[in-house]
Each structure stands twice: as structure tokens, then as C-alpha cells.
């Protein structure tokens, strides 16, 4: 029996990313077993280190749940990239890495002397990816983009909202993880290509474009002159009922749907109204769509007097797709997720052992790639400079004394 390794064991990633899109990309690589080394600044720490929630409400650079969620298993070094000596450290790190990931605004890495041409010349089989807001070239390349802005920019907001209400956000900066995941797949494809040919390459990812990539059907519709999908709450053209319905208790809700007529018949039976399955107002999808408000009122009349968990159990027993519209607390306390080992828990020097969400898959043979929590700021600086970049102890002390490692 051979001992199987994590898929990216032995792959080193120099991670110049920050906030969420880039860190989400390198988080996937860490979950797959890569050694991810985050290059941070002590004077301008990642925004996510500065944002709550902080453990027990006590702010601190190493106490943020946001940072600690999306940087699991990574290492952290601090460099002051305004100093030439620190740029040289960064160059050595890149030359010793397989992959460089960055999500600065387009052109920033070039201006720091860490652009693709230069890094590639030093290491011909390097893979580098830039995840910028608008892409590395094109008329809008110099526009600034923050995570929340990608949702409206991509068209997703114009399609999302309650009927008759303004366009809406979607609850998170959705463009960020979507870009990060596309970026991780592109990096893996480049690693596959490198394994076969020995050649590295540069990947230009535009967060705007990856955000539109998940709206392909709507784009095709627009291109043929179909009316844009109306903002219509949780309704969709191809199923009814299809919604989130009020349950008993304060702000408790149940998502459910009848994907076809047979499921509607099962739902009608659960509602105690089996005759509705053949009622001419509801028997077919067209009829249910035509009478959707009445239909939803019938569902609500049943759900609103029941505890969400109880109602979902009854619906699922009957074969009706349903789940509590989960809050973060519902997830944290979900016995199903616990049974599936969906969470990671590693002892952290400042916040203790906290519950985090792990990768959304299990591999039957490879072990999990992440075995330690998110790093404290700069915790690995000395080790990485010595073991990866090849600096002697006195050189490291000199760099530190000059302020290059802050």
C-alpha cells in the first residue's frame, strides 16, 4: 500500500494577494497541500486582519475570524516592499516558488519590479497569475475595483432583487470567491501543462469576466434580444412553488421547491391538501405559475405554524426538496456537517481552537492539505528567509535592522 500525499504536496506558492479574491485562490491551493507563503506588510496589514469578527470582540491583527477563515494552513512573512532589499527578498522567494499569485491593481507588481517578465526570466518554468478587477490589459485596466462592486458591475445585481424593488446585492462580495476559484483551476491547468512540457506561463484573470462567466444563460438571452430576466424574488420560470417561506419563530425561514408535477403532488399531500395536485389552478407548471401568489399563500399557511427544522424533516421524508434557510449558527451547529467533517479546528496561539469551514470536498485517498490554522502576522519570516530564500542568520538580522522585514 503506497502512502498517498496531498495533491499539491511539494508545490510552493508565493502569495502576494490580499482581501478575499486572491486569498480564496491560494486557500484552494493550500487545501490541496501546497506550501502557501503569504507576503504581508506589518505597516499596512491585510484589510481582513482589521475587520471583525474578532475573538471575544477583542481586536487584534491575529484575532480576526475573516482572516483566519481564508488563510488556513498558509505561512506569513512580512516585507516592506517599498525597500529595495525587501524586493530582493521577494524576488528570491518567487525564484524558489512554483507559482506566484497576486491580486493588486493591474501594473502594481510591474512597478515594484516584480512583474512577469522579470520573474519569468529568473525562473523559466514559473507560473504566475494576476487576479485584477478588470484584467491586465484593455481600456478599463486602470479602473479601481473593490469586491462589493463586482456584483453590480457583472450584471448580477440587475438580475437580483424583489419584484418591483431596486437591484440588490447578493449578501457577500460574490465576485471575489468566484474569481479565486477560477484562478485556482487555471493555476492547476498550468501546473498540468508544466508537468508535461516543462514550461511555465502567465495567467491574466479579470474578476469582471469571471463574474460574468456565471451568467452565461442571461448573456445569451440578451444577445438574441430576449427580454432580460425580471427581478422576481426567489421565483424562477421553470418551477413553482420555488421560494423561501416563513416558519414559526423569529425570522426563521424554509427554502423549498417542487421541481416537477410529481413533486408538487407530494408537496400538496404534505400540506394536507392532496386534491390540489389535480386542481386546475395548480396541476401543471403553467397553471402554478399563473396562480403563484395563491400557491405561495397555501405553502406559507402550512410553514408559518411549524418549526423550520420539523417542517423540513416532514418535507424531505416526502421527497420534497427543502432546507432551513440556514444562519451561520445553524451551520455551526449542524450535525450533518459535523458528521461529514466539514469543519476544521486547529489550535491557534491567540484565539485558541476555533471552528472554521474546511474544503467542500473529501478525497478518498489524499489526506487534507491543511494541518494548521491561519498564521499570525509575520510568524514565518525568519524560517522562510533562511530555508526558502537562502539568507544567513546575520543577513536576516541586517534586513530586520534596516526595517525591510516589516
Amino acid at each position, binding site marked *: 500500500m503506497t502512502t498517498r500525499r496531498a495533491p499539491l504536496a511539494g508545490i510552493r506558492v508565493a502569495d502576494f494577494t490580499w482581501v478575499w479574491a486572491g486569498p480564496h485562490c491560494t486557500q484552494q491551493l493550500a487545501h490541496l497541500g501546497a506550501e502557501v507563503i503569504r507576503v504581508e506588510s506589518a505597516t499596512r496589514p491585510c484589510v481582513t486582519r482589521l475587520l471583525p469578527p474578532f475573538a471575544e470582540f477583542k481586536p487584534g491583527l491575529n484575532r480576526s*475570524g475573516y482572516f483566519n477563515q481564508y488563510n488556513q494552513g498558509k505561512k506569513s512573512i512580512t516585507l516592506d516592499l517599498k525597500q529595495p532589499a525587501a524586493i530582493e527578498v521577494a524576488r528570491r522567494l518567487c525564484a524558489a516558488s512554483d507559482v506566484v499569485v497576486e491580486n493588486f491593481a493591474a501594473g502594481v507588481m510591474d512597478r515594484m519590479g516584480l512583474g512577469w517578465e522579470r520573474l519569468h526570466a529568473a525562473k523559466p518554468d514559473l507560473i504566475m497569475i494576476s487576479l485584477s478587477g478588470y484584467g491586465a490589459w484593455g481600456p478599463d485596466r486602470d479602473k479601481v475595483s473593490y469586491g462589493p462592486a463586482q456584483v*453590480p458591475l457583472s450584471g448580477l445585481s440587475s438580475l437580483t432583487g424583489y419584484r418591483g424593488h431596486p437591484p440588490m446585492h447578493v449578501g457577500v462580495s460574490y465576485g471575489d470567491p468566484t474569481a479565486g476559484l477560477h484562478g485556482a483551476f487555471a493555476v492547476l491547468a498550468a501546473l498540468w501543462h508544466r508537468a508535461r512540457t516543462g514550461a511555465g506561463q502567465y495567467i491574466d484573470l479579470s474578476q469582471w469576466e469571471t463574474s460574468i462567466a456565471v451568467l452565461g444563460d442571461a448573456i445569451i438571452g440578451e444577445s438574441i434580444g430576449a427580454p432580460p430576466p425580471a427581478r422576481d424574488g426567489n421565483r424562477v420560470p421553470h418551477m413553482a412553488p420555488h421560494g423561501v417561506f416563513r416558519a414559526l419563530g423569529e425570522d426563521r425561514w424554509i427554502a423549498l421547491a417542487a421541481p416537477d408535477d410529481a413533486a408538487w403532488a407530494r408537496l400538496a399531500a404534505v400540506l394536507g391538501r392532496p386534491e390540489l395536485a389535480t386542481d386546475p389552478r395548480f396541476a401543471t407548471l403553467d397553471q402554478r405559475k399563473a396562480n403563484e401568489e395563491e400557491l405561495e399563500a397555501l405553502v406559507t399557511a402550512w410553514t408559518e405554524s411549524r418549526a423550520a427544522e420539523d417542517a423540513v424533516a416532514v418535507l424531505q421524508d416526502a421527497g420534497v426538496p427543502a432546507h432551513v434557510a440556514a444562519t451561520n449558527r445553524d451551520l455551526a451547529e449542524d450535525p450533518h456537517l459535523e458528521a461529514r467533517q466539514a469543519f476544521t479546528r486547529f489550535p491557534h496561539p491567540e484565539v485558541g481552537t476555533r471552528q472554521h469551514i474546511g474544503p467542500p470536498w473529501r478525497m478518498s485517498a*489524499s489526506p487534507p492539505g491543511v494541518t494548521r490554522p491561519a498564521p499570525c502576522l509575520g510568524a514565518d519570516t525568519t524560517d522562510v528567509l533562511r530555508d526558502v530564500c537562502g539568507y544567513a542568520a546575520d543577513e536576516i538580522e541586517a534586513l530586520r535592522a534596516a526595517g525591510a522585514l516589516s
Partner: protein
Amino acid sequence: MSEAPGPLAGIRVLELGGEVAAPYAAKLFADLGADVVKIESPDGDPARRRGPFVGGRPDPETSGLFLYLNANKRGITLDLTSAPARAAFDRLVAGADVLIHGAHPLDRDAQGLSWERLAAINPRLVMASIAPFGGSGPHAAWRAVDLVSWSAGGLATLNGDPNHPELPPLKAYGDQAGYQGGLNAAIASLAALLERAASGLGQHIDVSLQECVANILELTFEWFPYAGLVASRLGAKPIQPLCFMECRDGWIFICCVEEHQWRQFVELMGSPDWAGLELFENRLARGKNFDALQIFLQEWCREQSVADLYEAAQRRRIPFAPVSTLGDLLASPHLTARGFFATLELPGVGAYRMPGAPYHLSATPWRLRRPAPRLGEHTDEVLAEAATASGGPR
């Protein structure tokens, strides 16, 4: 349509799935050059029955959702509950590198999709199984549609209108849990192929859509483990302005995260007196007093045009963005210059455009090689290849 090979040329992928999740995973492979064979049941992928239809009326060969998700693939039909079809499927599995499927755990055995059986046929196979709640655990048998997965993963409760608590948690447009599932399944599958180069063996990947969604809750999940608080769509945003405003010709997203961005925006507005009020002195104060701020901002924005305000803000490095309509995207000079949209022709029906390369790989570009397959278009071709293959895995 170029002949240049993509980075994944030579990888053989079988896809057995419907709607979005498994098809998007396989699309990511296909677009980078893998040979993807999509296996449909004789009545076809349910996406074929969803609009918009390029021909303007329902037709399984013109569904926009299907055409988008299945370009660059070959398509065959097999009824996996029949013995001859199962034998053909097993021959395909013997020569495949990856199988990505979206069969529900309760339906897998009937389709011959048990991992033990397929690993015995091809020990080098990587199989990704995508299910609403994964393949194990007390809810593995539960059913879902995309809205249910989005809600079960914790995202729906984050979106709503604080002024309308009576309105339900709100989903995002489209089958977004499916896209997240497809992305994660593709990542794990390709990683497992990289691992196979070392071990010589494939493995099984169990993907949960609920967990894919739970992975993208930004900073909200940790409010409970770190501070014991429940996140809600009804809470006020701590920082403002981060909001939608109506202009005279559409909507814009006002985005001032940093104080210097707010100061620039105030200047852009001509430094109105109200902006100097103590109520709005910093981003937290503006969050607390957003009700008042909103009225002043809306009054000013209503006189502006979206495009002019967007450009003026960007010139001052303020990250505003238009609330793009679909038409805005197709007309964007930037996206056009980057060649983002691909144009295809459905013979006898008409032309359509769709999103193209989501990333540019310098040495091995994304390529559109063929349109999505008609139902069963390549059945004879693919089964003939499998029958004459030397047999067994490479």
C-alpha cells in the same frame, strides 16, 4: 475556432450530469482542451428545457443555458439502466481519466456509479460525485434544487432588505450553488490527476453543494464561533456609503470604503454643505446615520448619468461601478477589446453570443472548438472509438 491545443489536451473526461454543477465542472476542462464526452439520458439534460431559447420558442437544441454550459464537448445518449448501455459506459470508463457526475446518492447504484465498481474497471480513474449534501452524513439522502442548496449553505439569509423584514431571504440570480459546485469539483478533480502522476492511482472525490456555498460566506460564518453572534440580512451595514443609487438613466453602486474615497466623492459632488455635518464625519458615523445620508445622496445622484458619474469617480480613484445591464456588458468597449464574448451560429436558427475566456493563459489559451452537441450527436462516433480502443486504461 482554433486548433491550438489547450493545456489539458489529452485528458479524457466523462460528464454525467444535468443543469449546472457537473456540466460547469466539465466545461472548465473542455475549454482548456480536454476531450469531454457528455453522457445524457435519452430525454436529455434538463437544462435543454430551460430558456432562453435562441430560436425564441422551446426547443431542446436551442436552450441558452445548455448551449453555454456544453460548448467544446461531444455528446452521447445512454440509458444507464439498460445492460448494453451499461457495458458501453464501462468501456468508456476504462479509457477515461476523469468522471464527473451529479447523480444523487440514492440514484447512483441504479446507474452503476458505485465507486468500488468503477475503480475496479479503471484504478486510474478520478471520479467526482457532486450532491446537494454530499455522499455521506445524516442528510445525504435529502433532495435539493439550487435555491435549497444556496439556502442550506447559509447565503440566502445574508441577503435582504433591512427596511422590509417581512420579505424573505433572497437568492441571487441563476443556479449559483451549481456554479460553485462545478468550480470546486473541477479544482479537486484536476488536483487528483496531478496526484495520480505520483501514485499512479485515481481516487473518489465527494463534493457537497451545501459546503461549497458555506465556503463563501465572507466574514459572516465566523461571527458565531468567534463572538457568539448570528449574522442577519436585517442588520445595518457598519460602513457607508456602500449602496445602490438611482441616477437619471439607471443605477450605480456607490462605494466608499476608505476615508480618502469619501473625501474625493464629496469634492466630486461640489462639496455640498450637508457633507460637512458631524453626522457624516467618518465611515462609521455615515453607517449609523445612513437614513439621512441616503436622502442627500439620492437627491444628488438622481441628476447624474451613470456613465459620467462612474468615469468621474474612477478618475478620482473611487471604486464606483455601474449596475450593469446585460446590454451594457455586451456593448462594453473593454470587454470587446479583450475579446471576451464569443459569437456562435446555430444553423438555420441564428447567431448568439456568450461569455468566453474567463482567464488568459499566455502559453495555452482558452479556445472555442465546437458548439454544444445536439442530443446524441456523437453517440455513434464515441461508442465506435471505445469499441476499437486497445482496451483498458492507458
